[in-house]
């Protein structure tokens, strides 16, 4: 899975929660929960979906790293890389 793939997965799953949001207009450095108005239940559903689609463990303790769009993509990418080399 390339970075572009990860970005696409994240965008799709975000749109499943917030269909009216155009991800292209979301500031990649802004806090996602605030920018697209998602609550803790939405966020848990998002993490659940990302876990299922990437097969990666996403422990609760790492949630702060997933706070922004760019942070989320970078986190998943790094996890995938280390999963491959492990």
């Amino acid at each position, binding site marked *: 899975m390339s970075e572009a793939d990860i970005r*696409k997965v994240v965008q*799709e*799953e975000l*749109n*499943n929660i*917030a*269909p*009216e949001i155009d991800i292209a207009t979301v500031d990649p450095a802004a806090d996602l*929960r*605030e920018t697209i*108005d998602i*609550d*803790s*239940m939405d966020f*848990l*559903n998002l*993490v*659940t*979906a990302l*876990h*299922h*689609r990437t097969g990666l*463990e*996403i*422990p*609760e*303790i790492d949630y702060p790293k997933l706070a922004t769009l760019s942070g989320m993509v970078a986190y998943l990418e790094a996890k995938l890389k280390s999963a491959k080399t492990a």
Partner: protein
Amino acid sequence: MPSLGADMETGTLVEWLVKPGDFVKRGDIVAVVETQKGAIEIEVYQPGQIVQFLVDLHSKVPVGTPLALIRTEGEAKAAAPPPLAAAAAPMPAPPVIPQPAAAVMPPPARPPVPLPAAAGVAARKAASPAARRLAEERGIDLSAIAGSGPGGAITSTDVERHLAAAAPPAEAKRPLGLDLAAMRVAIAAAMARSKRDIPHYYLQHQIDVTPCEHWLAARNATLPPDGRLLIGALALKAVAVAIARFPAFNGFYRDNKFEPSAAVHVGVAIAIRGGGLTAPALHDADKLSLDDLMSGMRDLVQRTRAGRMRSSEMTDPTITVSSLGERGVEALYGIIYPPQVAIVGFGKVVTRPWVVDGAIEPRSVVTITLAGDHRVTDGHAGALFLAEIGKLLQEPEKL
């Protein structure tokens, strides 16, 4: 047409999920009705066999209008051809058009490319949960989409491609079955009635939820996301358990008297994207394990936001819990949803200096509020009720 709230006068039948000849049991979902609150799945309370439909699809009828004839088991044995249930019809029955099975099927799929799936099993077509959810939200028939995933499964990308090709009107972005303007009218009517009829009193109580946070962090650390709990589940369970000791906050005020409810059906206030609010019931919340309660909440939130609530969930909450979440405010003062007599609010969790064993420590603190109905209870009972909720949240492992 069942009444799905004190302010409902009419409803529009939009879908039958059964057909004449089908046997139904109590609790089965038989139809979908469009109301001011959105599309509601209608459950049946009478076990038996569907004999015929009495209302045409897409017709708007007053509350109380019979929608279908059901022959109960006893009647079936007696083989009485004109079923007694028909007596319930106040009007001369409209011309009966026994609907053939085909009438409840989705409109024929457009020709494009479906994989060799047998006609009629469209609803079972392989699709990823994300694709299914997206299709449901946008009101798309999956059978009209070609799948590009493993084994021809439909992926959310396929659905998006289909959406782009179909160029839906902007209006279609709204979740299926939710009319936010109509919902606003319903909220306004219920809240105005509440403010007019219910002498509210308000209490607030700050509690330390650090024990909940520690317990959740330890528990969730070893679980995949599907199994994780949110603090909201603990809050809901604590209210449901506390109410057993304070039954005067659980039930309905009707016809100038309070009717306590033996069952604890907690209404969960759910915000709808784009504005709108509804509080369907999580049934028997006091008896659910935390895991079951959490999955019940997830299911309720997901269905509500997709515009698929069920009739019983709309009509029978016995108390409401509202939580504005972690980006909200520290305290909220709810308006009781009639005919209920109480609403409990949870503010966001904040870190505050707190005195523990004589020393000041940073702790996670939440403000719980209660709006109570003075026709039924007083502030004294309310204070004890809130204190009990706070106490229960000190020992989350026992919830």
